[in-house]
């Protein structure tokens, strides 16, 4: 049997996290940091073979691992990735390294627990992206909430308890309905194999009920309008690392659910209800764009911009075309980089001034020119400038939308204006201008740790913008296969 890379991707960070927990005394803090970094880097390294050995010519699941788990209910430890999920496993492991590194000096209390929470979270999220068994998926999907709940609730801001609870209740409300749907699918198919469900015939009325259940679970995570209000609160209260993981990976899990469950298992309902999803996506893009403009809190602003960008993902998926789905997936990847970078930038400023309010800043470029250059790049990527990763997804989705209906494309393209308006207006007020106050005057430019942290993401953002082909090539066969599955009626 070949090396179980997926198991390694899942268990290396989890085991590392548990080990780190043993060093939770204050005087071991530095040791815990290094251990966590080693664990995270190891976790990332084991995912690199996933890219190197990935076969882009087949839509089948690769790196498959299959073992009995609860035979009585036909539940298996079944892992595998295709072109849709493999990049997210890698992205997640990559972001984990960044997050551990980003918390290096910033987190001073309960260091070991903080690092452990992120490592365990990372392993669980890799499991979400590679689970091929319904119950396994559900288990890790829910388990993931616990570390994030703790991250917000323990290391968060003043209103952290409200935010953590809101986050928890919102998401669990959605996922409980999904459990019902999973059990129903088991009852008609007598298996928890997700891929087997792709072939189960279902009546339209049944599909619609199941669709609603899955939709609520995933739409909360994305999040889609109007069940998005937990996200700004969670971001505002979460520590920088929490925001990065939340925006870069957790939101992607919601979108991933659409392509792994909703579209292939419920193709007829998806087509039947596509107008509904398109409407919600356009509302996210336009309405949320306007909301973002007036935010006074930088984290809230970027949180709203995340919702708006994720609107492109769901919009792209429900165009039912190669271009749309690949655009949506590209947008997910890019948003992983760009939102992570934006939250890290805000974190850099927060560490110095301890405020997220735009009005507390002004003229940061005078004291932090290197930082300002990085943030310019990320702001432009957030506004979807060609040459950055942020452009690829938006461009493909707009093209796909115009192909389906010009007016849908028209609505989506509004983000060209709104995205630039909210991002650059914030940038102008925070970075440009004369030094606004003493706090800004005392800000020190980024040190080498922060420089490399932002520099690595900057390279990724530019690489994907200049040459997105390697990313799209990985997806392509699987997306084509997905569309054939979606194209087959189950009635």
């Amino acid at each position, binding site marked *: 049997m070949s090396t179980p890379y997926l198991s390694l991707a899942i268990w290396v960070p989890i085991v590392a996290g548990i080990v780190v927990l043993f060093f939770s005394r204050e005087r071991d803090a530095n040791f815990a940091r290094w251990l966590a970094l080693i664990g995270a880097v190891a976790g990332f390294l084991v995912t690199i073979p996933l890219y190197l050995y990935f076969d882009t010519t087949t839509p089948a699941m690769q790196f498959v691992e299959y073992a009995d788990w609860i035979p009585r209910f036909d539940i298996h430890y079944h892992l595998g990735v295709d072109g849709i999920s493999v990049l997210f496993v890698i992205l997640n492991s990559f972001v984990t390294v960044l997050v551990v590194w980003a918390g290096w000096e910033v987190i001073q209390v309960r260091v070991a627990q903080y690092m452990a929470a992120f490592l365990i979270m990372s392993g669980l999220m890799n499991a979400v992206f590679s689970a091929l068994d319904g119950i396994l998926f559900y288990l890790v999907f829910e388990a993931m909430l616990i570390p994030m709940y703790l991250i917000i609730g323990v290391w968060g801001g003043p209103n952290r308890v409200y935010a953590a609870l809101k986050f928890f209740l919102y998401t669990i409300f959605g996922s409980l309905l999904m459990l019902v749907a999973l059990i129903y699918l088991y009852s008609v198919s007598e298996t928890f194999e997700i891929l087997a469900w792709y072939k189960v015939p279902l009546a339209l009325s049944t599909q619609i009920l199941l669709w609603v259940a899955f939709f609520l679970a995933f739409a909360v995570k994305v999040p889609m309008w109007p069940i998005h209000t937990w996200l700004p609160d969670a971001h505002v209260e979460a520590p920088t690392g929490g925001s990065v993981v939340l925006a870069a990976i957790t939101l992607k899990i919601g979108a991933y659910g659409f392509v792994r469950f909703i579209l292939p298992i419920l193709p007829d309902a998806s087509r039947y209800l596509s107008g509904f999803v398109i409407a919600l996506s356009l509302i996210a893009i336009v309405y949320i764009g306007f909301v973002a403009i007036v935010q006074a809190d930088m984290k809230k602003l970027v949180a709203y911009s995340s919702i708006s960008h994720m609107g492109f993902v769901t919009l792209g998926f429900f165009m039912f075309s190669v271009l749309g789905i690949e655009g949506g997936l590209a947008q997910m990847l890019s948003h992983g980089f760009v939102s992570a970078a934006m939250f890290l930038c805000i974190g850099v400023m927060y560490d110095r001034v301890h405020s997220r309010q735009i009005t507390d800043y002004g003229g940061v470029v005078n004291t932090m020119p290197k930082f300002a250059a990085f943030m310019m790049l990320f702001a432009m990527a957030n506004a979807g400038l060609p040459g950055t990763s942020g452009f690829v997804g938006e461009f493909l989705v707009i093209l796909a939308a115009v192909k389906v209906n*010009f007016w849908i494309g028209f609505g989506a393209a509004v983000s060209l204006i709104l995205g630039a308006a909210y991002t650059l207006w914030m940038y102008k007020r925070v970075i440009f201008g004369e030094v606004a106050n003493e706090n800004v005057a005392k800000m020190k430019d980024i040190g080498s740790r922060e420089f490399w942290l932002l520099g690595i993401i900057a390279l990724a953002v530019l690489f994907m913008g200049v040459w997105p082909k390697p990313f799209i090539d990985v997806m392509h066969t699987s997306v084509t296969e997905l569309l054939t599955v979606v194209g087959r009626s189950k009635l």
Partner: protein
Amino acid sequence: MRNLYLLVPLAPLVASIVVGLWGPKIGRAASAWLCILGVAASFAASIVIFRDVQAGHAFNGDVYEWLVSGDLRITIGFLIDPLTVTMLLVVNFVSLMVHVYTIGYMADDPGYTRFFSYISLFTFSMLMLVMSNNFLQLFFGWEAVGLVSYLLIGFWYTRPSAIYANLKAFLANRVGDFGFILGIGLVLAYFGSLDYETVFAKAPSLAGTVLPWAGHWHLMSAICICLFVGAMGKSAQVPLHVWLPDSMEGPTPISALIHAATMVTAGIFMVARMSPLFELSDAALAFVTIIGAITALFMAFLGIVQNDIKRVVAYSTLSQLGYMTVALGVSAYSAAIFHLMTHAFFKALLFLAAGSVIIALHHEQDLRRMGGLRKYMPITYITALVGSLALAGIPPFAGFFSKDSIIEAVSLSHIPGHTFAYVAVLGGVFVTAFYSFRMLFLAFHGPERFHGHAAVEDAQHNDRTLASHDQSHESAEEPDPHAHEGGPPKESPWVITVPLVLLAIPSIYTGWAHIEPMLFGNWFGNSIVVHPSHAVVAELAHEWHGAVPFILHGLVSPTFWLAIAGIAAAIWFYIIDPAMPGRVVAAFRPIYTLLDNKYYADRFNDWFFAGGSRAIGRFASHVGDRVLIDGVMVNGSARLIGFFSREIRRIQSGYVYHYAFVMIVGVFVLLYWWGVR
């Protein structure tokens, strides 16, 4: 050749990256020369490529695959044809001049290396734009030049007016790009490709397609108008023109390079490049004509009342872009590109001359504080005079040929709106001549008004110019405490005057030297397509008997006499009778107020668009998110559950007689139910 094609954009890019990352380390001089070397290499390569293309070796090929998605293959590639090489030469030449000029102009600026990095990056982006063989790369270059323009307008980032102007510029351009990307989307949806060659080949067969979802418009009209909206943003056509005057907040070299000679002409270039599509839609061409005509005339009026020397040139740029757009609208693409070229030379010249004056006066931009400079700065004066004569369209300067051919083309056109356009472009000639020479006289002739501030407070001087409203402080360059001290103004150093002279030369000769091949010869080959029913330039060619007869014909045409009248009026107003402008202002106060407020376009935009979106945002954020979703749905459902739990909890009181009572009631209800059944 292929390597040479790559060298053209990459040389400035490499220079820009090196200087951008390590500029402060390698030093100011090394940074400057590295960037100049990059552009010079690119310029040299362009000349070689130009000769090669003239010998008939056009090229259309890909460099690498950007993305492959199903049957859609998007590539980065070059289309090297006569239109491209014309643009390459213009862009690289002006860029090179501006690079050299920058050494002198930015000498005292702490952001010296950053500035070089930006202008080289700009050159790269612009070259990518003009060399593109597909819509994606076009859009990349399109947005990239917008980015660099944003960075350069806000170059002095501590100045509130500069960072207001750059945000405004970016957003106005984004409104244009909104249309542009939809146009690209329509191209992909109906042509299935983003490659120029494929699209243009397929265009005639799709000319009859109508769009049922858009009131049965023709597909071509929809595509072309969407694309043209992009051009309206980039080339600053009414009503998206508002950003260009404010862009003068940037340092003068970039006003010359980006906001006069090259970037703003990207829209003109794009429409010319898309001529195979635009030719299929009379509606789109009429739209283009009318927008261009409005811009040409009404922006020229605004040039009259400006007191900031750079803003006069900026409004003149708007107006001249309007001329080019009109030329596009009447299918005289070659005339548009011809005017683009001559304009690039003389307008860059005028901007750089203005910059030379600004530097000599220690960052003074207000025309009311200039005057009499011709004896101090002879080279700047002569070159500015050449630029003004070219701009006014006096033969035999370059502007005469290009502008006159546009006007002739309009008079022959039959596109809807051509009559209005003809009146507008003719009227524009008078106004252009008037404001150009007003600026020239105020800066270089008359009494010297730059000795101290006292002279300006003098009411008489306010009357001397056609304005009393003081705008100078909105836009003054680097506030300099030592302004107006340190002796009389001096002629600028060679790094400034040499580019002026080198730009003055083509401003004199390119007209008569190139009109014949560019307009009536086969200069552009197949790169521009004109439908037989729109062939105005071909008609013009019948009347072409050489440059001298063209000039002689021009001398009896209304165009020439309008220009002369404009200059004469300027002489009368600003040299013979300096009290005249004040009297005119007093007589036409409402019109003056309208012009002084730039037709209130800025105020309307600030109130309606900026204020409106903030209001929508606030409403959506407060009422939508906080009250309705969080208040009613989220916390409301929590409260509802809380309410029920409280009520239900009350039943569980713990008293036996309560439970007994409920039980008895229950028993009765059951009995009753059974009894009734």
